């Protein structure tokens, strides 16, 4: 039994300790967000956020995740109540097949959590590990910029934001 904190809920999973998180998320917890793309750390389809950092869940054994906060795209928002990033992706219609998009959103989420005003160069550099084969890149970039503005606006109204370390 390994305790995993996924999207704020604690799960006790029976999978082998060296099972990559990706399979536990999809197979055991039945979450669809993280996708299998290569299993080799080359494409980012499986990207989730652990303690605020984007990681490849396909190469991350659950044994190292005890006591760490795991966030998947399901943890950001729902169809009815999407997070600012999810909303921005919908508003920009930033998907073709959409298979890479949850990974894109999670990588971008990690960036915007710590930096509300990334430069275009910073965004492109940060997103580099994630591949999209449909060529949706321009809209993904637009969605990230849009979300950054939305979040800045929200901050402005909400007052000072406490940034997690």
């Amino acid at each position, binding site marked *: 039994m390994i305790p995993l904190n996924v999207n704020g809920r604690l799960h006790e999973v029976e999978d082998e300790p*060296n099972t990559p998180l990706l399979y536990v998320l999809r197979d055991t917890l039945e979450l669809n967000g993280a996708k299998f793309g290569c299993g080799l750390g*080359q494409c980012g389809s499986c990207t989730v956020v*652990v303690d605020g950092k*984007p*990681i490849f869940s396909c190469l991350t054994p659950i044994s190292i995740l005890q006591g760490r906060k795991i966030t998947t795209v399901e943890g950001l928002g729902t169809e009815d109540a999407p997070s600012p990033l999810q909303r921005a992706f919908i508003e920009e219609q930033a998907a073709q097949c959409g298979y890479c998009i949850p990974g894109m959103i999670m990588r971008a989420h990690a960036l915007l959590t710590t930096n509300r005003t990334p430069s275009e160069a910073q965004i492109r550099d940060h997103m580099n590990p994630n591949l999209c084969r449909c060529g949706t890149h321009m809209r993904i970039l637009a969605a990230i910029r849009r979300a950054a503005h939305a979040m800045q606006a929200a901050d402005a109204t909400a007052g000072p934001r406490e940034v997690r370390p």
Partner: protein
Amino acid sequence: MRRILFSILLIAVLAAAALFFATHLTIPAEQQTQRTFAPDVVRRGGEMAALGYCASCHTAGNGKPFAGGRPLATPFGTIYGTNITPDAETGIGLWSQAAFNRAMRDGVDRAGRDLYPAFPYDHFTKLSEDDLAALYAFLMARAPVHAPNRTNALAFPYSLRPLLVGWKLLYLNKGPVSSDQTKSAQWTGGAYLVEALSHCGACHTPRDRLGAEIASRHFDGGEAEDWWAPPLNRTSPSPVPWSEESLFNYLRSWDAGHGGAVGPMAPVVAALATIPEQNVRAIAAYIASTLAKPAESEKHVEDNQTQAMQANPQGAQLYAGSCATCHETGAHVPFTVASLGQHTSVHGPDPRNVIHVILHGIQPPEGTVGAIMPAFADTLNDAQIAEIVSYLRARFSGGPQWSNIAGEIARIRRQETSP
């Protein structure tokens, strides 16, 4: 008596001073327009520049090629690669061939300032007239880039350039690469490239307190930008013997027996991939001879899996989850070797290279074929990386366990965060 001594001393000093000034005169500026070069000389100069890896030190992160600005961390402070494009104001546009040759051979720039040996003139001094001419032609045929040089950040007293005169007296031995009549033309060509132009010793030979290569320990292994540079002689700990062929593969792209170049060696291989094959074969032939071991000393690849697992179950489990997916597939994943034990770094004196790779991964240049390894800096904490590193050492190397692994991990992480 004393007066005689005094005058001798005086004469000596004056002579030294005279010599200093004679060798440090400003060489008159020469206008670009006065120069024309034969295309094949420029082409050959291009190959020379690749073999000398000029671009790697003289090009900033994503700056213009040869326009300088790349920081080079040394024990004495940070030195910045200079602009060697033919820009009259900020580059070497006004340098004559004579000025260029003096910089390459004597480490003195056109204005007469002594240059720091981070610029390896102790190797370039052995270059032939022809090759200097070709290099000069190539550089002068580049597009001028206006990019002012950054001033070095060196601690006192190293910031005093005149001290370099003394350094040169001690360490700069000029003259051609010593040749060996018994050897093949290919070997001789390789020796010349390795010792002069490609300046392999600059990283692969240990340096003394004054930053000079220790001649008596030629190719005993050194360091580059906080990476361990393995020995290129009999002291190499590589468990898989190097052959001319495997060296050629490695230097050109990747070798199934030893893997591929990472860290500061990666741009070297990238450059060697662009030049005519025979140059790389020559280098391989020479290095193979310096590495040569008697047959009986041939090592085999260790794999103390069970002991390592018992000694460090935590590390074994982390390895199984994070590394095995790619590294335990019998080399079925591209750019992986059958066993991580085949990588020389696992057998090195310190864990730096292994830590660098685990923390930052490997990314080939955009659009090029090459190994991709994800960075684990955000996935694994220091303790977990330490477990993996010591597990790798215990499992794949017969050598003693590395000391202060955790300390090194923390130090290398700090480097990243500090600007």
